[in-house]
């Protein structure tokens, strides 16, 4: 009786010790790396923003001038949407919204949607997603050119009823074997454009 109890207690100690070592190792690694990871993510976002709106177009710090849209009916879903504003001489030249398409094939797809002041799309990028490799991941610029089809589009080009993939009677190609992914992206881009149109005057307002 007392023998099995001492084995039990010893096992408890060993298990506790290994939990402690494991937690210690992960926390230590985290504390060493987390600043670098945050910096990497910031640079990655900045690189993507730069690709869409080059530095020559604006004179403000994109990452400093942001708006957080917590809830807007255009952006269904629980994710707040960040909007980066590109200003030149204190006037709005473009915005980059970071909406999340909630209805990808494997969960949500994070996008960057750059819109010129006049409501025309500069471009769209998928920054993070879990779409099927080889099928849905053709939304990545390094896998296919598909996402460039949005360049220069607007709410009137094509008309709103054609803002669908071809399978649904719209203007945008789907991928062979993957319709869900492009459908989700087209929908999210359309919603972002509609949001921009409805809130244009608010977004163009410059404080100070």
């Amino acid at each position, binding site marked *: 009786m007392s023998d099995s109890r001492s084995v039990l207690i010893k*096992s408890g100690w060993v298990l506790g010790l290994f939990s402690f070592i494991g937690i210690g190792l*992960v926390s230590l690694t985290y504390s060493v790396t987390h600043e670098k990871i945050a910096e990497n993510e910031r640079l990655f976002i900045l690189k993507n923003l730069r690709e869409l709106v080059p530095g020559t177009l604006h004179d403000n710090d994109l990452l400093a001038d942001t708006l957080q849209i917590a809830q807007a009916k255009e952006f269904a879903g629980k994710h707040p949407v960040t909007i980066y504003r590109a200003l030149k001489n204190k006037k709005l030249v473009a915005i980059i919204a970071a909406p999340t398409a909630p209805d990808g094939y494997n969960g949500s797809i994070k996008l960057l949607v750059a819109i010129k002041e006049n409501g025309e799309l500069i471009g769209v990028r998928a920054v993070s997603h879990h779409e099927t*490799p080889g099928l849905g991941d053709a939304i990545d610029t390094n896998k296919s050119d598909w996402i460039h089809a949005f360049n220069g589009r607007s709410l009137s080009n094509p008309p709103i009823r054609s803002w669908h993939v071809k399978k649904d009677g719209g203007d945008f190609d789907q991928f062979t074997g993957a319709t869900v992914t492009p459908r989700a992206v087209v929908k999210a881009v359309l919603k972002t454009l509609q949001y921009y149109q409805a809130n244009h005057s608010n977004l163009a307002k410059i404080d100070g």
Partner: protein
Amino acid sequence: MDSYSKILKNGLWENNQAFVALLGLCPLLAVSNTVINGLVLGLATTLTLVLSNTVVSLIRHQVGSEIRLPVFVLIIASIVTTIELIMNSYFYELYLILGIFIPLIVTNCSIIGRAEAFASKNPVGASFIDGFGMGLGFTAALVILGAMREVLGSGTLFANADLMFGDAAKDMVIYVISDYEGFLLAILPPGAFIGLGLLIALKNVIDKRLSKPASQSVSLSMDAKKA
């Protein structure tokens, strides 16, 4: 030395985790749609296997048999999380490509399988070699299955190699079949199951031929043709 080569051969062929033990099917079937995806996941898995085998072997006398499994799980989870954090901070470009594969390593039951079946009973050196051999065997399975599915499914080989090896590898893509329409089944999960089944069958045929000593030389040359 002789026993080390036996351990290596065990991992690569006789007890190949993918073709014989049928462990790690989740990552094997999910990520084997191109050669590069398979190669990358295979290498990451090999690193994890080597590390977890070594650590488990080091502590094998200190941990009682009642609590060995939770301790192994703790060790493997800590190693994978640490690898992920380090890659995320120091190899960010690579992390962006491999990010989705790293959590898949945890779902690979062959890692805890080797910890339990080998590393907990053998010295450190042998466990290290075992982790290495098993990892390479798994990588080979991923790459072969990946090549089959990529050629059949998309008509290419080594697509997206530049994501891993840099822009210099852009020309590595081989268009095996030009103007190929694609064969969707091969890329989708059913293609992975069918492909794996065919490869296991092929391995069994080879093993059977090898075990017939009389016709050994003949069968070897035939196998070479098949491979």
